[in-house]
């Protein structure tokens, strides 16, 4: 069984969770001053890393909270999970 540790509920089956893409992408403070290219960069361009990757996940069938996951995209191993707003663990 593939188990993920929710920072609130503890270890649960992965089927209770879903992934929502890359984490730690800050929304530009003044979007109206950006060029189309810069706005497009913020909206669509992702790092697509091979190796340590930071992602946002939700515990859909549990507490329904969002949290962050540090995952190795090569081995699919989840190295850490942490609450929203917490500093990302060092890779």
């Amino acid at each position, binding site marked *: 069984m593939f188990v993920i540790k929710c920072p609130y509920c503890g270890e649960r089956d992965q089927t209770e969770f879903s992934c929502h893409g890359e984490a730690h992408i800050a929304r530009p403070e003044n979007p109206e001053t950006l060029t189309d290219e810069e706005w497009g960069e913020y909206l669509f361009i992702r790092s697509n890393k091979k190796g340590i990757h930071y992602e946002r996940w939700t515990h859909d069938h549990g*507490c329904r909270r969002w949290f962050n996951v540090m995952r190795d995209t090569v081995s699919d191993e989840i190295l850490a999970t942490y609450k929203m707003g917490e500093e990302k663990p060092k890779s």
Partner: protein
Amino acid sequence: MNNTNSPLQSKDQIKSSNINLEYMDFIGKINLRIRDVDTDVLNKVSAYLGYELPKNSGEVSTNDESRTAWLGPNEFLIQCAEDKKDKFIEDLNRNLNECFYALTDVSDYYITIRLSGEKSIEVLEKGCPLNFKEYLKNKNTCAQSYISKGTVLIDRLSEDQVFDILIRWSFADYLWDWLSDSCSEFTN
């Protein structure tokens, strides 16, 4: 059982020596959401209910009048008798007057199905990914997960295997059929 609007009113209950499945008549259910770690609200609600609200995942606090389950770090489900529900909401709203919170009556949003008997966990394990050696081990614990395709809150009421399963109204018919099918191998 006498409620004409229940989606489960036409279902046959299951009663046997090791597994029972029954539909619980409407229970008052109030959802409370607060700001993260707002101790002022927590204290006021605790003072009114007469017990500390659950602090961690899987905890349930209770007394004779109500039962409060942990749904999230800032979300709780308060269950009480249906005829007391309006008074609870009114009193809580009055006590929390100046605070930032949301109190929602979800009584008709969830249906409660009670599964009991010594084979209950075996039935649940067929469709629920929870590790029952770790979760729902004791009386007054709860866990949110899913059973087959329905998202549920499972609330353990007793050291014996008695579980209240809260499911969305629209999924109740499906879950009942799934559970009663799962129970069938244990009924004599």
